[in-house]
């Protein structure tokens, strides 16, 4: 036991600490509780999600046919369809009052937008706005959460809400990149000018992907007219410049060459590359120098781009530059590109060298030599070409350089390689014969020539026969070529003294024509020279199209010195029939003289034209006044007989200071007629003298019938007018108004005046004490409404004066029938009244087509009330005749119905209590819903209506307000609550 205890104690040192069992239980319970809460939360959340999803799906299923109905509603639908459409519209408006429903409808429309195209998609966009869903997206734009804002922008963009353009533009420079990018796309999508605005205002980077998306948006815009993007090449934002360059290239806007060339010097490599790409695309040849200038400071990629551009638009002048690059550039890719660019300018100048075998030591049997030659041709190395004869790449270069003292190498280059050269290139020639050597630098001899067995006896004779024809022939149709073989041959000949002399001047000007000559004729070259000299220089400007001459086909070219084609045994004399095609660019090199035309050295015969000032006295001064003016004399109408008295115009008698006018004497004309002497025809107006009007004496007698208007009844001015006491000069012997005729007229006039005066209401003068009351009544009439009726009644009771009572009664009666009166007089509508005349149908009416409007009018006839009267009256002036006619009918019907209901109510002597009204209103509303085929129990939210559909039970033309001042709305509220509670069971 003791041992055991000891043992236990010894073990106790490493045992776990004692934990209270209760604590463990507590912890266990806690974790179980937590896990339960956790699982319950998950369960509830999942349940919530699945319920929501199920609800969404269900709602989508319910709504999608409605949306389809809206999308495919057509103008030529039947009346029943249109009625259904209107009902659907009302129904969906009710549904959209619920946020969840609105969200679902919005989702449906956005989903469908992706799946449909054409007119259906357009209709979707319209529906989106018709349902007012864009306002929800607008709200999202105001959110502080970036994802909400982004979603809002996206929705507005996808549904093409162009009105949102202005709201979205402010996000273009938003600090949040997602919103910014979304806004950029939106701005470009919503309006064609959006791209301009974006490029003008953006301050941020435009990523490559964004550029692609923007370009795609722009590209897909129908009838998009791209602006001139060069205006953004000067932007401070390098990304805008880059994008503008890409757009310029895409839209082929080649009117910004100078700017593009300048952008090659941009420090940004991307811009540089894009500018180079533009240069290449638009073939801006004048950019060559700039490209060469910037080349050495560029990165490898840009260098490659430059070489590519130079290759496509460069000329032979650029080959040297590329050769220099090939020698000096350390980057392999650039060197390689330089060579390929050389080949682009001068095709096949540089041949493949990589992996080419050296065939110099091959022992080839004699009998298969022609085949071997083919092999050798394909096995030369690039070094052979470049190192040994670098400028054979393009002999044109040498010519174009215009070196007056060509270097040794250039001299070598211009020489046709001799067999010795070939030996130097290829090493020891096994056969020791020439044809293989030709292939070193010249295109190969066609196989058929090499392989054919030539009868040397027969051929020369045949060629001689052909020779004559060849000389007589027209020059061949030239094609683009570098016919250097022949020219080199000529030069070589001249060097050897075996042909044209060394000082032969080839500065001829028949540059555009290939020269076809018989080389066998020793005078050929001199003739060429002579003929060329005869031709005038103006022809020099005509471009040459030369035909390529296969130099290998002319055996003499390989060994002209010997005069015998090596390997073939053909003598030079035998090949005389072959024409020489001389290209204009080669003329200088052939001559060995001046190779480049220097314009400054042209002798110009000129005559200096110096303005020689004439002495001032001798210089004729143009005197305008001295000019002789030809004119046709205007015949004054002297001979025209005038019924009126004619005479010289008095105006001519006015004293005019002629000296000051400085009238030129020449203006007198050829015949010297003085305008001052012209006689002017004028008419003297002979009328009544002003004063004599007053001399008319009007004599009259004022007669008033008995009982007529007395002097005191007529206004004084009338009396004065009649008696005419103030007429001046009355007594000075004027016209006298006397006699029975005048008397009858006078009496008639007085009668008329009397009748008019009777129409003027007689002024009412109140006593001072009543004046205040009457003023109050006037104010009440002016500003009051039916609510003043109790006050008026009170006043009526207190008032004992008849005048005031009459006035009060008048005002009361007016207020009682106010609604009807005010409807007829829109000018006196107050705010409340205008609200009272607001018709819910008006809202539906506006966006509808004619057919729908007619249906709505039909509905108004059935369910409309007094509120619709004003609306219908306005429709009587609608531009559409059908609507006018229908509105007129509906107005009549509605008025009849309203008056009938009033009469019925009057007859029934209805007592209005709230309960009774509710009962009748419910019945009426139920009937109304039946008519509209709307089932309120299905969609309880229909009771959240924003407008009132009400039958007027007011009767008597009275307003909808209860006598205690409660409005219709206060009546309606308990009614709707009750009905709703009934609907919910």
């Amino acid at each position, binding site marked *: 036991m003791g041992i055991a205890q000891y043992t236990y104690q010894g073990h106790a040192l490493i045992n776990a600490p004692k934990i209270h069992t209760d604590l463990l239980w507590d912890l266990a319970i806690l974790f179980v509780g937590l896990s339960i809460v956790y699982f319950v939360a998950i369960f509830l959340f999942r349940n919530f999600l699945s319920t929501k999803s199920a609800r969404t799906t269900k709602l*989508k*299923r319910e709504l*999608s*046919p409605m*949306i*389809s*109905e809206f*999308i*495919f509603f057509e103008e030529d639908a039947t009346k029943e369809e249109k009625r259904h459409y209107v009902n659907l519209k009302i129904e969906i408006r009710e549904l959209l009052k619920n946020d969840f429903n609105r969200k679902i409808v919005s989702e*449906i429309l956005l*989903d*469908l937008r*992706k*799946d*449909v*195209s*054409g*007119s*259906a*998609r357009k209709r979707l966009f319209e529906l989106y706005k018709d349902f007012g869903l864009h306002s929800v997206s607008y709200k999202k734009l105001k959110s502080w959460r970036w994802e909400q804002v982004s979603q809002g922008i996206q929705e507005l963009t996808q549904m093409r809400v162009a009105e949102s353009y202005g709201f979205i533009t402010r996000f273009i420079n938003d600090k949040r990149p997602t919103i910014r990018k979304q806004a950029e796309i939106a701005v470009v999508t919503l309006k064609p000018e959006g791209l301009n605005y974006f490029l003008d205002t953006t301050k941020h980077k435009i990523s490559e992907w964004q550029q692609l998306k923007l370009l795609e948006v722009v590209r897909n815009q129908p009838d998009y007219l791209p602006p001139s993007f060069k205006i953004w090449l000067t932007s401070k934002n390098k990304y805008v410049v880059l994008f503008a360059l890409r757009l310029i290239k895409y839209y082929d806007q080649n009117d910004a060459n100078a700017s593009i060339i300048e952008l090659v010097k941009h420090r940004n490599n991307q811009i540089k590359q894009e500018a180079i790409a533009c240069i290449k695309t638009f073939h801006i040849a004048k950019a060559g120098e700039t490209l060469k200038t910037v080349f050495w400071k560029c990165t490898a990629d840009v260098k490659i781009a430059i070489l590519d551009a130079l290759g496509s638009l460069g000329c032979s002048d650029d080959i040297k530059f590329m050769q220099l690059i090939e020698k000096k550039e350390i980057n392999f890719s650039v060197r390689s590109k330089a060579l390929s660019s050389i080949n682009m300018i001068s095709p096949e100048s540089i041949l493949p060298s990589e992996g080419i075998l050296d065939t110099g030591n091959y022992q080839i049997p004699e009998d298969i030599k022609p085949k071997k030659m083919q092999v050798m041709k394909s096995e030369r190395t690039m070094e052979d070409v470049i190192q040994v004869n670098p400028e054979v790449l393009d002999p044109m270069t040498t010519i174009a350089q215009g070196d007056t003292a060509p270097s040794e190498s250039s001299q070598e280059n211009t020489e046709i390689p001799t067999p010795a050269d070939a030996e130097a290139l290829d090493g020891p020639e096994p056969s020791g014969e020439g044809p293989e050597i030709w292939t070193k630098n010249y295109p190969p001899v066609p196989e058929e020539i090499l392989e054919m067995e030539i009868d040397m006896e027969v051929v020369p004779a045949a060629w001689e026969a052909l020779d004559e024809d060849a000389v007589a022939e027209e020059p061949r149709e030239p094609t683009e070529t570098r016919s250097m073989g022949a020219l080199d041959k000529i030069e070589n000949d001249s060097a050897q003294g075996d042909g044209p002399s060394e000082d032969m001047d080839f500065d001829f000007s028949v540059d555009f024509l290939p020269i076809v000559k018989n080389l066998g004729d020793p005078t050929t070259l001199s003739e060429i020279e002579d003929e060329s000299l005869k031709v005038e220089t103006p022809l020099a400007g005509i471009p040459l199209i030369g035909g390529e001459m296969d130099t290998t086909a002319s055996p003499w070219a390989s060994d002209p010195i010997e005069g015998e084609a090596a390997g073939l045994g053909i003598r030079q004399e035998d090949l005389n029939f072959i024409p020489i095609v001389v290209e204009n660019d080669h003329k200088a090199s052939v001559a060995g003289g001046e190779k480049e035309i220097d314009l400054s050295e042209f002798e110009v015969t000129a005559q200096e034209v110096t303005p020689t000032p004439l002495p001032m006295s001798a210089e004729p001064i143009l005197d305008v006044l001295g000019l002789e003016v030809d004119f046709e004399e205007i015949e004054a109408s002297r001979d025209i007989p005038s019924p009126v008295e004619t005479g010289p115009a008095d105006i001519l008698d006015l004293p005019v200071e002629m000296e000051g006018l400085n009238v030129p004497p020449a203006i007198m004309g050829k015949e010297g007629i003085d305008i001052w002497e012209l006689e002017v025809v004028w008419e003297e107006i002979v009328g009544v003298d002003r004063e004599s009007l007053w001399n008319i004496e009007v004599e009259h007698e004022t007669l008033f019938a008995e009982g007529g208007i007395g002097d005191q009844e007529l206004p004084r001015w009338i009396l004065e007018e009649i008696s005419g006491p103030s007429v001046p000069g009355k007594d000075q012997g004027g016209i006298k108004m006397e006699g029975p005729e005048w008397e009858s007229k006078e009496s008639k006039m007085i009668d008329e005046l009397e009748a008019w005066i009777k129409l003027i209401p007689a002024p009412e003068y109140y006593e001072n004490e009543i004046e205040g009351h009457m003023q109050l009544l006037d104010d009440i009439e002016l500003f009051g409404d039916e609510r003043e009726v109790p006050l008026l009644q009170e006043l009526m009771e207190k008032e004992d004066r008849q005048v005031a009572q009459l006035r009060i009664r008048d005002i009361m009666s007016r207020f009682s029938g106010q609604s009807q009166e005010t409807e007829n007089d829109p000018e006196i509508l107050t705010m409340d009244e205008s609200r009272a005349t607001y018709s819910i149908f008006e809202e539906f009416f506006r966006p509808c087509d004619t057919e729908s409007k007619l249906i709505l009018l039909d509905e108004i006839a059935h369910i409309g009330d007094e509120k619709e009267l004003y609306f219908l009256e306005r429709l009587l002036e609608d531009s559409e005749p059908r609507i006018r006619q229908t509105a007129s009918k509906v107005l009549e019907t509605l008025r009849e119905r309203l008056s009938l209901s009033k009469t019925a109510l009057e007859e029934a002597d209805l007592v209005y209590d709230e309960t009774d009204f509710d009962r009748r209103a419910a019945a009426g509303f139920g009937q109304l819903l039946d008519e509209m085929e709307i089932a309120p129990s299905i969609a309880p939210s229909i009771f959240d209506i924003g407008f009132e559909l009400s039958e007027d039970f007011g009767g008597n033309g009275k307003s909808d307000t209860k006598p205690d001042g409660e409005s219709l709305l206060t009546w309606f509220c308990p009614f709707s609550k009750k009905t709703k509670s009934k609907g919910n069971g």
Partner: protein
Amino acid sequence: MEKKKLLLAEDDELLASLLNFRLEKGGYRVTLSNNGKEVKEELARELPDIIVSDIMMPYFSGIELIDFVRNELGSSIPIIIISSAGNEENVLSAFELGANDFISKPVSPSELMVRVARELNKT
């Protein structure tokens, strides 16, 4: 005149509903199937005058549907395929198997109507 029977196989319920509405309005008796299984069942029950089917459908793709109709049922009823853009390979396969026409998404319902009418006129 009896209405032509059209089988519309489309898994997107919204689009299916929309096209269904348009086709019914255009005078066709439309049977709607949301997946390949339903299509098979429907075909077993009654052969329509024309089939308009999406290529990508659950259980039974449009390609398989064409194969089923042409080879197993041995029917030559016109089949119009609906496919999203950039799905050329499937479209080519569909044509090889015997589809009569093809319309790409987004679908223009009016265009679909015209194509359906044309195919039915051919037969």
